[in-house]
């Protein structure tokens, strides 16, 4: 089993509250560019992007800075990261991010903080079977 952030775009009203919570929590800024979940407004429903913990980046990382923890979540050890961004390039869903001025990349770790802020039940934390 693995812990993952589930998204329900049909419910999403693109209020961007989740991005605000996430960027504040991890970067102390209110800026979607620093959020680990990304909402792009689109028709007929917004596009919601969060890491599905598939682990492809883990295979790519040359320093073993990325590992999968006991809950099935892909975690980054910043001490081992050498900022090559091979993980960013290999992520099939574009959920591993590089940020301006920073060294280590960042990604969703299914902490679930955003779910509490969502007024529309568009995100939840779930335990899923391995893909």
């Amino acid at each position, binding site marked *: 089993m693995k812990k993952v952030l589930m998204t329900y775009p049909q419910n999403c009203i693109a209020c961007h509250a989740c991005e605000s919570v996430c960027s504040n929590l991890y970067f102390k800024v209110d800026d979607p560019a620093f959020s680990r979940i990304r909402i792009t407004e689109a028709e007929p429903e917004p596009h919601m992007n969060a890491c599905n913990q598939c682990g492809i980046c883990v*295979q790519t990382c040359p320093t073993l800075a990325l590992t999968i923890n006991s809950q099935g979540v892909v975690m980054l050890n910043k001490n081992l990261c*050498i*900022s*090559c961004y091979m993980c*960013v390039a290999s992520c099939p869903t574009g959920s591993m991010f590089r940020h301006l001025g920073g060294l280590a990349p960042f990604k969703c770790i299914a902490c679930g903080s955003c779910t509490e802020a969502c007024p529309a039940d568009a995100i939840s934390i779930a335990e899923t079977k391995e893909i």
Partner: protein
Amino acid sequence: MTDRKILAEFSYDLKPLEKGYNRRTLYVNVGSKEIKSKPVSDMMIDKFVGGKGFDLYLMWHGVKDDTKWNDPENEICIGFGPLCGNTNYPGSGKSIVTTISPLTGIPVDCNVGGHFGPYAKFSGWDAIEIQGKAEEELIVFIDGDKGSVRILTAPDEEINSHILAEELIKEFADSPDKHQFVSVVSSGKGAEHVPISCLNFSFWDKRRKVARLKQAGRGGTGMVFRDKRIKALVVKFSGLKGDTNHPEDLETLQKTGLKLHREIEEGDSSQCHMREVGTAHLVEIMNDYDLLPIKNFKYGQMDEAKGLASWEFKKLFTQGMPDGCWYGCSLACCKAVDGFIPRSGPYKGKSVLVDGPEYETVGGCGSNLCIWDAKDVVELNFYCDTYGIDTISFGTSCAFAMECYEYGILNKERTGGIDLTWGNADAVFELIHQMARGEGFGVIVGQGVRKMKETFAREYGADPKLLQDMGMEAKGLEYSQYMSKESLAQQGGYTLALKGPQHDEAWLIFMDMVNNHIPTFEDKAEALHYFPMFRTWFGLQGLCKLPWNDIEPANNAETDEPAKVPEHVQNYVDIYTAITGKPLDKHELIRQSERVYNFQKAFCLRMGRGRRIDDVPPYRAVGPVTEEEYLSRAERYDKLLQEKQGIDPAGKSTAEKMALLRAFREDQYQQLIDAVYKRKGWTPEGVPTLEHLKNIGMDLPEVLEVVKRFL
């Protein structure tokens, strides 16, 4: 752990690099045990840039005009370049090794991966210069965490690299989880006996938990190393971060690197499969185009070659690993065979890891010898690496010996009982083990092709002209593994290369022969000016050339100059400026190289080579030497006689046609040299003119003094 005595110690201040430079180089004399730091001047940076430029500059001032490879003053220099070690752009971890070569007597330069270069650089040095000859075996240890350099005794029994590198990593790492912070340069048993030797640069593979090896392969670097009685160079550096190079503009560096990562991610599986098979993907392509060396470069194509196609190696390579030779290389061409069991030699029956094979090794140790079993090539690759032998020179030398055996110049009596018929892998295994043991006919083969020519003519009365025609060396260095017979530009690319025939200066077969994009002498001369200069640049900076053109942007074919891959050239300009903060454009990029290239040319002249007479290829590189060779492509050659020379081949004997073709091809080659020398700013004798040296800013007094001797 081995009991080591400290023979000398030197402490230095640790300080961060600034925009890619430390502004000092490390000097170690293993004879006198002197260790010191030398400042890097603005002049050095302006004119020599770094990497190979610094190496050659240091070496020029360290050796004399008549220094031989085994004189104490000969140096091994290892330079890193300002871009080396950045983790953001693929292919940024290369060191450049230079030394006076035991094969050619002139400076040889090798571009090599592994972690030693970046770690030595981040330990505080822009280049390392090693001189002297030790009385006892020793290790030079650079501790980049503490700021010290030590010369240590090395009573270790082990010499062969796959074991020694691993032992030393384990000994010098602070703890088992820190193995990746140590890197080792070593050679092997073979390098003690034969000049066709190499150096191994290690990198710790965290996933496989094993030390892996990349080679500074060409020109006998290993033999110089062992002659100095150096067992290993060891570096430790634990502070690697994404900005250790301290670039001026990290954002541009990261963005440009990520752009290329994405291109590789999208393009590799359709364009070149480097991540699955490394450079071995070239085997089937070269065979299809009649360019794979077979039977000592006689033929370029054979059905049997499918035994060495990349899909055969793919079955042996462990898949799905980030196989870069430095962090951040997403092209990841360093494939490995895990759990290989050799069937010969001292490691017979033991499980070993083999790095590669790469295309050159497959050509040299496979097709060129008619060895068609991928596993035999893997075994030769393993022993070459661990014994410190260059797979390219080894392959070409064995191929030459096999052809001599075919013609009866050699026989079992002369080889000590070894049956050197084409394809006899066991015989080739025996040769390599003899090189490591320093005994038997293997040691004669290991002297390289030029020495074998002399020996076989002198000892066995072989026809020197035939030996010269078929022995694939120039300047004393063996050819690497492409057939150049049908491409005039490639003949130039090989034979005009400063260090001896190696395709890393210019690889123009496809542009010339397959696509006919450089039809005139002037076009070819332009290409033979641009590409050697462009590729020299990688050696100045600490970069690998593969990420330049192995993957191309999707719209590359629509650009003005697709062969140059303009978008990637711009990437290099951008990352250079992002790291160093210095302005650059694609023209100044070439100019940077031109200065160092002409300096190296003057260096060769100073050491007694480098004139027109030294740029002569063996005829096998130019055209068919034997009748069977002519007949294998008779239709093509007959047509050429008709179309290019206006000669009707009908009624002429093969010998007559061969003579006519030869006269024509040799003349074409000479015309090519005229055009290339002119374009390079050299006299018809191959000497840089004073005016040219002034124009490019390489009119240093010491250079002019040498060049004037030859004008």
